[in-house]
């Protein structure tokens, strides 16, 4: 039987629906689709950034970037940074959330203060850390030399592997409060009966953590890891301000390479090609995240 003809009311409802979602679709196109297509389009040209004048080169930018060692070393650094800082964020975040979940003195104050690193601007955070790391006046070197641990100041940001370790540590300090907030919220909703049952079965604190707490946190941790992995992978300001990608290119991640191509070398086309490759890499994380949230929803 042929499809039933829509009534006038149904057609009007359909029109109303379209009209209601139209603003969202328009905004989506303006802020997501247009820049995306624009970046892909630009990546097919050789473009001088200040004038935006350029010529068509097809896929040459992609073949060139994949052939250069700088892309692969930056990708490697990007992965080390992401995995390193994310691991520390999770460890510190879960640990701190467990502490703040206990009945400790000034718990409310502590819960507020712990968010401090996450809330302050990256520029301020980097300035503070650069002073802490300073070779001549930094408190870290001063204390260590005072305690007799070192004879000469440590160069935290100018030599490897110190620079990468320092960047990872500052990144972990800056972003672990996000993990604390999310994990603490989940901890507060774990039924107390589970812990009581575990105690009756003779489980100690460590066993209760691994057998009760951790399985209950699994869902939220998966979402945190995926979100933070996406955000950390494209981190720019913290690394740029701390080391500028140096020494040489030892802490240069892909976002810094995009910036260098676009604004130091004035090669907007090549920068766009790097950005498109970065987007494809992040797409992996996004697909995993979308699949995860879909399965949770169902």
């Amino acid at each position: 039987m042929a499809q039933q003809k829509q009534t006038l009311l149904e057609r009007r409802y359909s029109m109303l629906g379209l009209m209601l979602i139209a603003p969202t679709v328009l905004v989506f196109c303006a802020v997501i689709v247009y820049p995306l297509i624009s970046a892909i389009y630009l990546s097919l040209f050789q473009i001088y950034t200040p004038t935006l004048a350029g010529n068509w080169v097809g896929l040459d930018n992609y073949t060139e970037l994949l052939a250069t060692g700088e892309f692969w070393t930056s990708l490697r650094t990007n992965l080390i940074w992401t995995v390193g800082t994310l691991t520390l964020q999770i460890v510190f975040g879960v640990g701190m959330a467990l502490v703040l979940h206990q009945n400790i003195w000034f718990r409310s104050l502590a819960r507020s203060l712990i968010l401090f690193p996450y809330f302050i601007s990256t520029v301020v955070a980097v300035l503070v850390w650069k002073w802490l790391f300073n070779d001549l006046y930094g408190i870290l070197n001063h204390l260590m030399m005072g305690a007799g641990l070192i004879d000469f100041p440590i160069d935290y940001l100018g030599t490897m592997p110190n620079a990468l370790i320092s960047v990872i540590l500052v990144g972990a300090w800056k972003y672990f409060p996000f993990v604390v907030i999310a994990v603490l919220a989940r901890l507060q909703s774990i039924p107390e009966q589970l812990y009581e049952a575990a105690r009756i079965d003779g489980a100690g604190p460590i066993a209760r953590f691994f057998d009760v707490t951790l399985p209950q946190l699994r869902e939220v941790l998966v979402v945190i890891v995926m979100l933070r992995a996406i955000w950390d992978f494209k981190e720019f300001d913290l690394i740029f301000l701390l080391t500028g990608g140096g020494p040489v290119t030892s802490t240069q991640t892909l976002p810094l390479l995009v910036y260098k191509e676009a604004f130091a070398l004035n090669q907007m086309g090549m920068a766009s090609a790097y950005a498109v490759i970065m987007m494809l890499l992040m797409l992996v994380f996004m697909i995993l995240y979308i699949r995860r949230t879909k399965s949770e929803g169902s």
Partner: protein
Amino acid sequence: MNRSQMTTSISRRGALKGFAATTALAGLPLRAFAQEATIRWWSPQGAPAQVDAYKIQIANFEAANPGVKVVFETTSDEGYAPQLAAAFSSGEVPDIVTHLPSFAVQSYYAAGLVAPFNDVIEMIGPDDFYEGANDVFKAADGNYVGTGIGNSAANMLWLRTDLMEAAGVGKAPETWDELRAACQAMQKDGIYGAPLPYGANSMTTLIFAGVIHQAGGQVFDTDLNVALDSQETRDALEFYGSMRELCPPGATNYSWGEAITAFVSGATATGIYTGRVLGNVAEQNPSIADHVTCVKYPTKSADIPAWTFNDFPSVFIPAQSQNIDIAKKFAASLFNPDGYIQQLHAAPGHVLPVLKSINENPAYQANEIIQKYPAEVDLMSSAAAGGYNLGYESSEHPSNDKAGEVVGSGLIAEMVQRVILNGENVDQVIGETAKGIEAIMKG
């Protein structure tokens, strides 16, 4: 159609419409002239005292030009290139830019992004400039791309005479060997020898380009072919590497700010910077003010002449500015004696005058720091007047409009880091750096 017919064909409504349209058209030019113009002024020189001086210059100009507003915005020595690249590509450009090195202006002019500056130089008075002061701003087409708002001697060797005396260093070093020996003698009791930059930044590039010249070499030959692969570059790298142990550990990340702070605070026995040192010492560490002097940076051997790095701090007007005429007027006003002297006094010895009349002006000479250090200021003035930079390596070199991109690429700083910090093969690194610079020159 006769006259009577024409008259009768115009209706009252039509006449009113015509009247309204005529009134609107007549009003347009009036509104355009009455429209307020806002001039955006960018500069990387934004120390508080300098900004105070700029405010006075702005207030004077605004008072003389009602309806015009000037807004000062600070950029930075390391950040101006990306900021201007973004500004040029978006079309949201400042109307006037000051204190950028001359080679950057030449690069922008070659890309058609800068307006010719000839008439501003005429407004200031071309005869008042020191002889040859504007040569560095002359483009291949014969136009001037900008002019100098000052001179700077950016790689002066600053010395602590009290530490020299205590270490038995009898005279200011003139050669690299003497400099190294002096730094070794003075490096003790928590004080380091020198604050040379080894960071991945433009200071390392610009200072090391000078070190190549101090070895008798050059980055480009007089036909602007890359001339980096030379024994002189190897000697420069060897000297720079030998100085590493005489610098603070954090010098691997040093740029201009860290380098001056290290000397002014007393953490290093020598320094490398412009005359800003004098003002900073007086303000931040007056206890060493009587023991500070400067000389031209030493060379590999006494027969090699000194090479002073002058970035020729400029003033220029982006071609996309919507207020070019007013911006030119404002640019010329920056050289009015009262405001210009105040601007120079904001960082005495740091930005040196480019106009003869200003240098001879008693009001300029009346500054406390200029009076306290006459020999140093005279030396910096003469060194800066005979100074060069990567875009203008010698009087035989034509202006290099790719120098800005060579500096921005960081290739020379990267070469320094790879050889000195990473210990990579010198020949291979120099070869790769030369190829990278050649690619920029061809691009």
